[in-house]
């Protein structure tokens, strides 16, 4: 937390001051190297790569500068050792890795030892002459060691001082106060070369020595080309093995009599893979998947190969992916094409609770040759405000209150953070007291600055040599080795990344199928084809997909209702067309789907966009249109597609914009058409999917929808047990009730830790009771397994929960079945008596305990019991909060009846479930909110004016009375809200 100036700011300042080169020596890391190299290139500076080593074994910071490629590998090794707390960084170790490195130190002890051991050393005199540096200078002169003046700058200019102080306060978890400045050291900033010349004029030659030192460092960045994961060939070439296993897999997938189409495609893909040297990569990924299958108890794990890799038939045959690229016409060139220079990656989803095991397996097997990719966490607007507020000493409760209202905070072009916060609808009418204005002002300077290094959710690199010879490796908090670069850095260095990610829905599907089998129904996955099941298609077409992977969001459910098709092909298209900047195309798609007239913007697009109704839907459509109309090469068109997803795309897009316009003009495309097409391309801003990815996801969606349709209890139990869906537990429980399921209270006699579904009953799992420790849940299940509980006293004595846990169990109704007519208040008294008698002792007494007769305590009113149940469960098993509302609501329309009020103004009382903020074309904020009542779910639209007025009122899981107009579009019902009142 010392870097208040970005590498770019430092380079820019250095260029302004007339420097010809610059050395970036971050402390114990090379994380900023790629930014630094790009900035040096941009500002035409000579980069010098290095690092400042700070370690308990070193008596002063040691600066290492890289002379050549060997030195770079050595520096990576040295930093890796330094980051390993189990190892000591001594001179012998440095001696081993000294080649190609220059060591700068201000420690006479180190320098003397280094000189004797033949290290390439220089005395670091710092940025100004001091008494200490005078001694060092004399020693260097006497010993013949070069003495070098440095800048020791940590910030680019004086104006970053305040930011530096703030970063220090955040890093050290202290309070930021400019009033206490005199207690701190001021940061050193970069000054003009003449300043250093003048300062060091007493010691001639020390500034020139710095130039000489920089001249010796000729290394300008690593250049290893594409670094493929190694595959142990066992005598055969990787390509030959891949061919064999691909054909074997094809026979498994399609039968032994392979069609000509399949063979042709396989041959083509195998040739491209061979030519590009990717055979070993495929085999390594196949090994990972096979090992994951083997490690599961049933011998087959649930995986979903996704991303552009799903377009490969080879990957499909190797069982890395699940969607047939031939059947669904998936574009292989999106994944691999001969012109592609960057490494493609294969992404594989595993069930979320399996992912760590798979990663451990890979890291264990490949040892030093594998590490995870890091993620550089930067300060975003909300994090910056939160951290600055903490540094200002604001109470955490106050920070949380303000922070909750910043959920829609996004910085737009030309808008300051203060303006963005002021304009937030959720803060309308709320004046933030002092010092919030100062907090926000200072926080704006933090945005974009790196905060810490975290671990990428699943990115792994596997290298032929130990990873630490390509990039420094450190241990993450959770113990895995992690490289100091994020995925972009790894890509720059040519390290091929394999993404092994966790997916909750795969866990849901796995658990639901397992429950179905446990409940006595045979389930054959081999011939399971949910896409062809009419009932499942109806579920999808009606948008009844809450809980189903990727198609449960309100936007997706509404789109399915409007489309009303429910078929696989359309679902693939729909899951791709729903993206932030494509609202108008979604509407146009629905219109065309329902037979609205349309024609291609240009006849040449017929081949490309026929299956998507003339609209660009998939990522590859951008490339294909550019090839078809502007005459782009495949490589260039792929570059255009890639640049869309980059953060710093503005400049690079301008270049593509001109080329696209010129290409279209050359091909005789009208200017107006070209502009429309470009606008459509711009709708891919932010995230978007390629078709193979959408198809992979759509398959998982259909599997989930099938299980929900045919086995609702098992499916909903799996959704609730795996947690982490789009909606809250409350919403899923309501959905279960709408499916006709009976929600049974948690019960210490029959509940397991997870939810259970059977027939039309859903038993709440112990995990749903807030405040229960994992140990207690296990204790309950284990004790019950030994012998069922005979009464509540037996339960208390055998399980002995903590006070809060006992209260939670009682309030949730988990002890009602063994209460023997005692009410819940008396149960809690009984627990208190047991606790009082036993004290802190946890062992069972020798003789049965006789409790005195409890006092005649009454149970609270029914409403209070419900309130307590809601507090510990987050939902009500037998009722709905709306039915408990004190106020009687006259004339309210229920959600299920809304369709009959099309175009009319109605009152609707609903419980707020979730919301999605969006921006209009003019940049105004509006929100789509989902409410539910006891009859169903209703999607609502809050246009900007209404949203601004009521945003500060809206909190999740609260009852509101809405007034607005019912709108029905292609069968999908929404409410356009006019007024809101909290009930």
């Amino acid at each position, binding site marked *: 937390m010392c870097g208040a100036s970005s590498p770019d700011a430092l380079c820019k300042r250095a260029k302004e001051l007339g420097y010809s080169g610059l050395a970036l020596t971050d402390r114990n890391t090379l994380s900023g190297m790629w930014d630094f190299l790009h900035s040096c290139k941009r500002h035409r500076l000579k980069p010098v790569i290095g690092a400042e080593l700070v370690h308990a074994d070193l008596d002063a910071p040691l600066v290492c500068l890289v002379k050549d490629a060997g030195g770079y590998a050595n520096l990576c090794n040295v930093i890796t050792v330094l980051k390993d707390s189990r190892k000591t960084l001594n001179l012998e170790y440095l001696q081993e890795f000294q080649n190609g490195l220059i060591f700068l130190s201000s420690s006479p002890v180190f320098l003397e030892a280094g000189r004797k051991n033949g290290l390439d050393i220089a005395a670091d005199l710092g940025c100004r002459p001091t008494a200490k540096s005078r001694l060092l200078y004399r020693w260097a002169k006497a010993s013949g060691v070069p003495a070098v003046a440095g800048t020791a700058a940590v910030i680019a200019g004086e104006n970053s001082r305040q930011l530096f102080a703030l970063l220090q306060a955040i890093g050290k*978890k*202290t*309070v*930021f*106060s400019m*009033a*206490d400045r005199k*207690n701190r050291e001021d940061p050193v900033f970069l000054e003009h070369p003449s300043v250093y010349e003048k300062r060091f004029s007493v010691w001639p030659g020390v500034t020139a020595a710095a130039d000489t030192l920089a001249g010796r460092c000729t290394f300008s960045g690593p250049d290893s080309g594409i670094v493929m994961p190694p595959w142990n060939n066992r005598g055969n070439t990787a390509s030959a093995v891949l061919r064999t296993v691909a054909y074997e897999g094809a026979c498994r997938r399609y039968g032994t009599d392979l069609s000509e189409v399949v063979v042709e495609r396989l041959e083509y893909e195998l040739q491209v893979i061979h030519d590009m040297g990717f055979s070993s990569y495929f085999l390594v990924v196949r090994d990972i998947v096979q090992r994951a299958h083997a490690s599961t108890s049933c011998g087959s794990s649930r995986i979903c190969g996704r991303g552009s890799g799903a377009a490969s038939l080879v990957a499909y045959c190797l069982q890395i992916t699940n969607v047939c690229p031939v059947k669904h016409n998936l574009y292989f060139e999106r994944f691999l094409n001969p012109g592609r220079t960057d490494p493609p990656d294969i992404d594989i989803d595993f069930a979320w609770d399996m992912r760590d095991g798979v990663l451990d397996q890979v890291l264990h097997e490949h040892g030093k040759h594998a590490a995870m990719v890091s993620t550089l966490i930067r300060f975003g607007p909300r994090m910056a405000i939160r951290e600055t507020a*903490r*540094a*200002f*000493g*604001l*109470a*955490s*409760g*106050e920070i949380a209150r303000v922070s909750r209202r910043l959920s829609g905070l996004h910085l737009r072009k030309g808008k300051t953070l203060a303006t963005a916060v002021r304009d937030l609808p959720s803060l309308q009418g*709320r*004046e933030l*007291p*002092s*010092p919030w204005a100062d907090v926000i002002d200072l926080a704006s300077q933090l945005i974009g600055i790196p905060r810490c290094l975290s671990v990428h959710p699943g990115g792994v690199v596997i290298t032929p040599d130990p990873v630490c010879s390509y990039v420094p490796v450190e241990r993450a908090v959770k113990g895995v080795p992690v490289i100091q670069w994020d995925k972009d850095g790894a890509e720059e260095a040519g390290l091929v990344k394999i993404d092994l990610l966790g997916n909750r829905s795969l866990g849901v599907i796995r658990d639901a199928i397992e429950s179905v089998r446990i409940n006595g129904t045979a389930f054959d996955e081999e011939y399971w084809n949910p896409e062809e099941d009419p009932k499942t298609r109806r579920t999808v077409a009606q948008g009844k997909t809450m809980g189903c992977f990727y198609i449960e969001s309100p936007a997706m459910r509404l789109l399915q209702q409007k489309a009303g098709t429910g078929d696989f092909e359309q679902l693939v298209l729909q899951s791709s067309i729903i993206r932030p900047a494509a609202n108008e195309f979604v509407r146009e798609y629905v219109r065309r789907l329902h037979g609205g007239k349309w024609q291609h913007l240009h006849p040449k697009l017929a081949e490309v966009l026929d299956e998507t109704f003339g609209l660009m839907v998939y990522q590859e459509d951008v490339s294909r249109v550019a090839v078809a109309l502007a005459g782009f090469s495949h490589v260039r068109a792929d570059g255009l597609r890639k640049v869309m997803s980059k953060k710093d795309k503005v400049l690079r897009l301008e270049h593509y914009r001109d080329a696209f316009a010129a290409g279209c003009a050359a091909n005789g495309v009208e200017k107006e058409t070209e502009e429309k097409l470009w606008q459509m391309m711009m709708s891919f801003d932010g995230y978007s999917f390629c078709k193979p990815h959408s198809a992979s996801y759509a398959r998982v969606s259909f599997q989930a929808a099938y299980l929900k349709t045919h086995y609702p209890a098992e499916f909903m139990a799996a959704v609730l047990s795996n947690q982490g869906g789009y909606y809250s537990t409350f919403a899923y429980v309501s959905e279960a009730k709408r499916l006709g399921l009976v929600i049974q209270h948690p019960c210490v006699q029959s509940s397991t830790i997870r939810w259970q579904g059977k027939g039309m009953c859903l038993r709440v799992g112990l995990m749903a009771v807030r405040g229960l420790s994992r140990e207690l849940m296990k204790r309950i299940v284990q004790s019950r397994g030994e012998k069922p509980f005979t009464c509540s006293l037996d339960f208390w004595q055998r399980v002995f929960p903590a006070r809060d846990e006992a*209260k939670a169990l009682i309030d949730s109704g988990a002890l009602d079945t063994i209460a023997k007519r005692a009410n819940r*208040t008396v149960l*809690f*008294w009984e627990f*208190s*008596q047991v606790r*009082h008698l036993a004290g802190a002792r946890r062992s069972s007494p020798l003789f049965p305990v006789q409790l*005195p007769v409890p*006092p005649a*305590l*009454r*149970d*609270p009113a029914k409403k209070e019991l419900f309130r307590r149940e809601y507090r510990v469960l987050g939902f009500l098993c037998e009722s709905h909060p709306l039915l408990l509302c004190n106020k009687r609501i006259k004339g309210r329309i229920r959600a299920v009846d809304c369709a009959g009020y099309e175009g009319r103004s109605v009152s609707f009382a609903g419980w707020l479930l979730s919301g999605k903020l969006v921006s209009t074309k003019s940049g105004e904020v509006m929100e789509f909110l989902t409410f539910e009542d006891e009859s169903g779910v209703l999607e609502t639209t809050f246009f900007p004016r209404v949203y601004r007025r009521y945003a500060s009122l809206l909190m999740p899981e609260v009852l509101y009375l809405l007034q607005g107009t019912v709108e029905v579009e292609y069968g999908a019902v929404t409410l356009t809200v006019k007024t809101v009142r909290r009930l």
Partner: protein
Amino acid sequence: MRDRSIIHLNVTDFAVAVERLQDNSLREKAVIVAPLQAARALVYDMSEEAYGDGVRKGMRLDIAMRRCRKACVLMPEISRYRQAMQAVLGQVCAYTPLVERGEEDGHLFLDVTGTHRLFGPPQDIAWRLRKQVLANLGLDPVWSLASSKLVSKVASRMARPLGECIVGHGEEAEFLAPLSLSLLPGIKPAERRLMQDFNLRSIGELAALSRVQLRVPFQKRADFLHDISRGRDRSLVLPERNGTSRIVCEYHFDTDICERRVLTDTLTPLIHDIGRELRRRGHVGQRIGIRLFYSDGRSVVRQASCRGGSDNDFRLRELALAALNRAWQRRTRIRSCILICDRLLPRSRQQTLFSMQSKKEEQQGRMLAAMDTICHRFGRNAVRLGTS
């Protein structure tokens, strides 16, 4: 022990009542007293009307204003409230020397046991006092009469905002039984939550439990709860005495602060006040404690002590800063601080055979004595120690 007669006199919303004396137009209006110039002001006091709208003491002013938009906000005038409190005290002191007062909050307990022959029955005293305070000061206090401080306080709570309440001897349990537990003082928040868990709503429901039963959930506090639920309270009315065993100074920041320097600058005059008081009494303090109140409501106390004690401001400051270093460990702003000097000992008048004091300390002692003289003559702020 014979039956006692304790009067509880309470000028409700004391600060607002004093302000209304100054400005008649404030009557019937919602009033909030809070330091307006402070950036993050907190409510010091509020009128009954504002209370009804949800305003509470210690609430942030901006939140209070959202709850009661029509409220008129006034700056707190602590010296005026202190003066008014002193004036009320002056009115009651004629009846009994046993008067216990709160800080400037309008609460007074009077033990009038045994004054019957002098002033008549206790209820007459209370009546007279109320009329006297109203006539002489314009303040209309609520009063109550009971056999203990506890019951008289509950009775005042019942009577407010205007009126009186008398609880006869032996009627305490009967009086308390139907009342809500929220009116009973002395119950800790955790105990209150536990009572809710057992669905105990009224004082009578608590009183229905035996001591043995109460020990089940409340352990050591069972006897105390058992007594107060029946209106039994033997605590004495403690009049303010000079020469208590400790000296306390308090400072509330208008705006909560996070700068260490501001806090140390604030401590300096407080230390000077303590030092001056020690020298006036002829005492030395062996221990300095500091209690910091954070803006999130939490507080922390830490102490530093020295053998033999000291009345030297410079030495006391060292101790205070050491205590501060131990106390301020959290990353949260400070709302107020209390400096406590205790373990007081009389300063030895006897000279030591071999002087233990350094020359510097002797000089400091002489300087502090001179400062005390100046402050005594020209006011406590006439001369101060500076900080660099």
